[in-house]
Each structure stands twice: as C-alpha cells, then as structure tokens.
C-alpha cells in the first residue's frame, strides 16, 4: 500500500486561492492541490484543484474532497502499460 500524505502549504496563485497541500506519494512530491476559495469560482468553491502535478500532466476537474484527490493520486501510480514519457513542466 502506497503512502499518501497532504502537507499544508500556502500557494501564491495571484488569487484568493491560497490554501494548498503538497501531495506526497511515498514521500515524493507528486502534486500541489489548492482549495478554490476565490469568489470567481462560483459553484466550484471549496473544491480542491490540481494546481501543479509532476509526472505526465493531465488536466483534471477539481475534487470535492481531499479523499477524492487521494483516490485520484493512487490511481496515478497504477503500473503504466507503456514506458512513461519524460516528465513535463506543469501547465501554466
């Protein structure tokens, strides 16, 4: 069983979305989540957005809870069917 850990971190996003989590998988940083608190997000407020991710980037919808985010993170490390491409910088 892999270990998933969320460490609180403040993130400068240029918006009111500041409350973040470093998502660690077996002690390695795999993503940075940010809670959507800015009023511009309307019905998405309170959800956890994948602000940055390491490894093959994939655009995902915000998660309702950190538990949902953990389930997604665990799914990310399912053995790849093909060799992974080189890690890319996270989407701006």
């Amino acid at each position, binding site marked *: 069983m892999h270990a998933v850990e969320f460490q609180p971190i403040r993130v400068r996003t240029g*918006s009111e979305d500041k409350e973040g989590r470093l998502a660690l998988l077996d002690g390695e940083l795999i993503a940075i989540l940010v809670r959507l608190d800015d009023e*511009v997000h309307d019905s*998405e407020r309170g959800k956890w*957005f994948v602000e940055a991710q390491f490894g093959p980037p994939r655009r995902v919808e915000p998660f309702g809870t950190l538990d949902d985010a953990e389930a997604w993170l665990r799914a990310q490390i399912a053995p790849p069917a093909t060799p992974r491409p080189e890690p890319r910088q996270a*989407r*701006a």
Partner: protein
Amino acid sequence: MIPNAAQNPVRMKGTPIHLLVERLSVLAPLDDVERQALAEAPLRTMVAARDQTLVRHGEGMAECRVLLSGLAAAHKLLPDGKRQIVSFVLPGDFLDLDAYAAGRMDRGVTALSSCSIASIPHAALRRLSADHPGIALALWRDTLLNAAVAREWVVNVGQRMAAERLAHLICEMCANLETRGLAQGEGDERSFSWPVTQADIADATGLSTVHVNRTIQDLRARELIQFRHQEVTVLDWPGLQSLAGFSPDYLSPFDKRPGSHLQ
C-alpha cells in the same frame, strides 16, 4: 452596392445575401457583375439552437453553410472526450467551405448560441467561381485567412501566458466583430456579445476553467475588461492590445496596395 437593390428589395442590406456579399468583398474586390451574380445565388436559410451540432467531423455535403447570426465553435474531439476549440465562427463566416474543395470536414462545428444559417449548393458555388475570378479569389482568400488565424492560435496556446493568451483571444474577437459592425464603442472602449461559457474559453485557450476564472479576474483587476452575462466590455482597447501583443495584420493578410496584382 448591388446595382438593382432598389428594384429587388429582398436583396437589400441586412438580408442573408447582403452579408455574404459584404464578407466576400472584404476578402477580394468584387465588381458589380460579381456582386449581382452572388445576389442571384440560390440560398436557403435555417435556424439552429444552442449546442446543436452544425457540422460533424468527417461529414461530406452538397452545400456550403454561412453563419448569418449567432456564434459557433469549430473543434476537434480527443479520444478521451476532451475538446479543443480551434476557431470561433462569426456571422459572415463559412461553417464548412473546406468540404466544398476537400469533400469532407476535418473538424466539427457546434452552435454556441442560437444561430441563423444560410446554405448555398456546391454546384452554385462552383459556377460562381468558374464564371467570376473575383469570387474564386475571395473563396481562396477565405481559406488563407483561416489558416493565418489558425497559425496565430498555435502561437497563442504555445507561447503566451494565461493573461496574454486570453487577452489576445478577446482582441481577435473584438477586431473581427468590429469589422463586421458587431462591436460597439468609441474612444478606448469597445463592447460585444460573446455567448461563451468559461469551459468554452478553457477549450479554446488550453487553460483549465479555474485558470480562466482567475485570468478573467486578473484582466478585470487591471481595468482592461469586464465580462458579465456573456457581454464583454473592453475598457482599455489599446491597453488590452498592448498586453496581448496583438496586431490585427493577420486578420487581413492581403496586399491591397495600388498596383498589386492581387488588388
């Protein structure tokens, strides 16, 4: 203007054919004979509701459609269901001119608002282009223009950061609509209707909806735009163009200087 417009009230300003004639005239100079030939082309009009599929990827057809009013998006669909909007289709634009020459479409087109559309049979278009070099040149230039815009979109998603990217897209919409008399404003202000959702903008810019929300907020905080109820107000038109690095040259990439053989 069309020479016998006075005797032919259905062909007058504001009619579907007028819009097509004016649009093609922007692309290439049409003489009176060419305008008259276009005015007599057989057109059929129809309406479409928001979200209606107007063109299916791979579809071949026997007629070309021109958007008369409303807004549509041309897009590519990915195997996992994601969508990339590759262009917005504005009033006066063809939805599917490619299929006239290529036989099929390499993209789908969906209505983003209620739309009215005119269609002209390929056979009629073929006759018009064979008989009238000006019309043939205008159709050719329409495809050149679309390719120029597509190249600019590659630059946009490939090189510009979020604020510049969205600003550039808004500049393009504003400049395009202004040319067609569909943007209002004076001085440094402009306004136009842009019936898109944040998800549509995300699909056009390669940003997440979260980043689209933040970027709109950023442009608002810089007092460059307001965007509410699908109405864009550009508060500082020169400022927005400057941020975006926008130059409208690519929207009319034709040499119209006196003496040019393409004049």
